[in-house]
């Protein structure tokens, strides 16, 4: 794992992989959308079942991104790996975005089917907490003048907050909720007809790839930004010594 966790190697590898992954993502997203809109309506919920094709993948990604955030934060805390720090920092806004999609699409689905935009049941509330955990992480990274201290504090928050992920997953089994129980990842197999399940799984794969592509682009940008900052600093130091500031022995 450490072999691939080298920033220079990451830049080289990602530049090769990125165009292919991006093309595959676009293809899967298109296929998922076409199949999703051609899938039959649900026997009870009619065409609103199509909201599922974005709501459920977004919800899965919200939990997946948070687990990735917690894992990279652990790697950053324990092994002090610079790439893990950048990965964690760049995952957070993406995860927050997926969580926002999940909350908004879920609200739009709940209004016509349940008869309410929002209720404070265990599932909905725990996902809202997840959204605030992402926002808290992002805020905490920038809350310190010293960026390393900010990232370290935020990493601890990311780890502590991970406890929410199993709570989200099992909230519908542990407590009475308005939200229905799991349909796909459950004992006894999915309770979704193949004609509706297929587009859902393709969209889920497309969302996962989309996350990986976006994360790679963001990490590359962050690494380049760091390089530019370092070069600027070198330049400023060189310019400083030219005018005789701070260079040793000039005052003599």
């Amino acid at each position, binding site marked *: 794992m450490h072999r691939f966790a080298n920033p220079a190697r990451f830049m080289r590898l990602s530049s090769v992989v990125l165009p292919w992954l991006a093309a595959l993502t676009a293809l899967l997203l298109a296929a998922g959308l076409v199949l999703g809109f051609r899938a039959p309506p649900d026997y009870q919920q009619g065409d609103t079942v199509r909201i599922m094709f974005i709501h459920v993948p977004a919800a899965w990604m919200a939990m997946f991104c948070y687990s990735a955030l917690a894992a990279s934060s652990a790697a950053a805390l324990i092994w002090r790996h610079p790439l893990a720090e950048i990965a964690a920092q760049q995952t957070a806004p993406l995860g927050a975005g997926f969580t926002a999609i999940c909350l908004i699409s879920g609200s739009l689905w709940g209004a016509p089917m*349940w008869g309410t935009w929002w209720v404070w049941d265990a599932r909905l509330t725990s996902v809202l907490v997840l959204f605030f955990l992402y926002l808290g992480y992002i805020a905490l990274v920038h809350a310190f003048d010293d960026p390393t201290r900010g990232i370290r504090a935020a990493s601890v928050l990311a780890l502590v907050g991970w406890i929410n992920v199993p709570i989200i997953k099992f909230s519908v089994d542990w407590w009475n909720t308005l939200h229905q129980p799991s349909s796909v990842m459950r004992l006894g197999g999915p309770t979704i007809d193949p004609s509706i399940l297929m587009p859902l799984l393709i969209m889920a794969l497309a969302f996962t790839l989309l996350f990986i592509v976006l994360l790679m682009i963001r990490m590359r940008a962050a690494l380049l930004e760091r390089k530019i900052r370092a070069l600027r600093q070198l330049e400023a130091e060189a310019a400083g010594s030219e005018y005789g500031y701070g260079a040793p022995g000039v005052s003599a």
Partner: protein
Amino acid sequence: MTEFLAMGGYAAFVWPAYGAAAIVLGGFHDQRRGALSLSRSRAGRAAGKTAGGDAMTRKQKRLALVLGGMASLGVAVALVLSAFNDNLVFFYSPSDVAQKQPAAGRMLRIGGLVEENSVAKFDGGARIAFKVTDGVHDLSVSYVGVPPSLFREGQGVIAEGKLDASGTLQAASILAKHDERYMPPEVVAALKKAGQWREDPAASAPASPAMEAQK
């Protein structure tokens, strides 16, 4: 086990007290160890040795700290959640109401299935009355207004309102709760034709013997 965790109804007080004590005591332990290692490193320096002579490297220590912290946090959250279990449920079933006898006039939510052949309309459709059942007990609900489009007999429902003196829930709002199955109408028709169709599995499965007994 559940009885032990419930602590005779005082779980919300007992477990947080233990949790707080454990956290504070853990903090003491860490402080003491810090002082110990400091004095040890001083002693080591005095003896001309480095302080890094421990069995664990710094990385391993950090790993152990993260794992230990996560494990104790998990236990703490599990205890708190089981202590507040009763406040985390979104609705009560008719059986819960029969068992707990909540006071009339208190706001509460009741969830279950709309009992078959129980929906009746009054005042030209402005008010509806129906029974919510969990297969064992049922509860009468009265509601003025238009229910959600998924509301129908045999379908999951959550009603929020106050119990009146006769034990009927005067609902202020009605929410429809659907199950986790999604399928096209043709598949449902085929299943029904083949006699393979089950109504809402969550509510009907454990209830059937009691339902038979009631009839």
